[in-house]
């Protein structure tokens, strides 16, 4: 492909916390059910990995924070490396989405929530043995009580929405 006709890669400078942090940047509209089924399938595969690598295990999180096992560090570290290489390839070769759109990247702006909220989440992560993704996989694996944890997490998110303007950012 001729380099000259390559479109510049879009980076949107936006970090108003009002916006979704994991946004849908696709221009083309999608139907609610049929188009979203592919994300359901991707989620199923992802959930299987979560369970089979025992990332959803409360013990693995304990081992990580006690520095007794390399497993979780290996998982997160190698995921980041593969993610970095993929993003680099997408940018370098301007790889388009399935709908032939340019991939959009967002720049995250620092705010103090990254620190305070990060610490709060860390405390909860070690207690529940789960970040939000594994919460869903734990429920699917038959740990029914985790439904209560998930409901409480939704309540926590709601409380953040309520108090947001009064919190330091």
């Amino acid at each position, binding site marked *: 492909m001729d380099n000259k006709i390559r479109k510049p890669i879009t980076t949107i400078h936006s970090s108003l916390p*009002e916006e979704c*942090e*994991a946004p*849908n940047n*696709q221009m083309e509209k999608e139907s609610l059910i049929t188009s*979203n089924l*592919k*994300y359901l399938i*991707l*989620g*199923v595969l992802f*959930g299987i990995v979560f*369970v089979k*690598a025992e990332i959803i295990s409360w*013990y693995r*999180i304990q*081992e990580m*924070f*006690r520095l007794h096992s390399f497993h*979780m560090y290996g*998982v*997160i570290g*190698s*995921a980041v*490396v593969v*993610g970095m290489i993929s993003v680099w390839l997408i940018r370098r070769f301007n790889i*388009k*989405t399935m709908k032939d759109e340019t991939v959009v*990247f*967002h720049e995250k702006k*620092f705010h103090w929530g*990254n620190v*305070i*909220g*990060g*610490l*709060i989440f*860390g*405390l909860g*992560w070690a207690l*529940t043995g789960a970040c*939000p*993704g594994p919460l*869903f996989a734990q429920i*699917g*694996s*038959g740990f029914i*009580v985790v439904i*209560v*944890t998930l409901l409480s*997490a939704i*309540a*926590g*998110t*709601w*409380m*953040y*929405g309520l108090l*947001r303007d009064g*919190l330091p950012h």
Partner: protein
Amino acid sequence: MLEIIRQPWPWYVAGPLIGLTVPALLLIGNKHFGISSSLRHICAACIPANISFFKYDWKKEAWNLFFVAGILLGGVVASQLLSNPDPIVVSPATTQALEALHIPVDNNLMPSAIFSVENLLNLKGLFFFIIGGFLVGFGTRYAGGCTSGHSIMGLSTFQWPSLVATCCFMLGGFAMVHLVFPWIMSIIA
């Protein structure tokens, strides 16, 4: 083949597969990997309560809800069809530390001493389900993301605020396990 799949997957298989979620979501539909946002969409869809933070077109982000529903189904598939026949292997040092806190390591992915229905209405349930879950939901949204949005997606795109957030996730976790956790277990006992 099935025998191998049923064994626990090593980090060098699982990590790269999780990393591939980043380009998969970007290339399928220009979507950014981030799971905690699903909790916000659930609030926006079910209990917006006229709060400005929850007033947006959550249907546009409905893909994220399908994705987490998939994760739940993946949990069903993995535990029903691909479950490991052997007991979980936990490092001896962690096993010892947990036994000292009266949390015996049993054969499943989660300790039954904590994650059982009997604990729903006692202090264990209050700390591990109610408070723990609340901290996860409040903290991730305040931080602007969780392990997926910051640690994987954010670091993959070289966002330094995500590195700060990731370090704080870890700091919070270390503080819980080493400082707060022994105290909580002494209250419960």
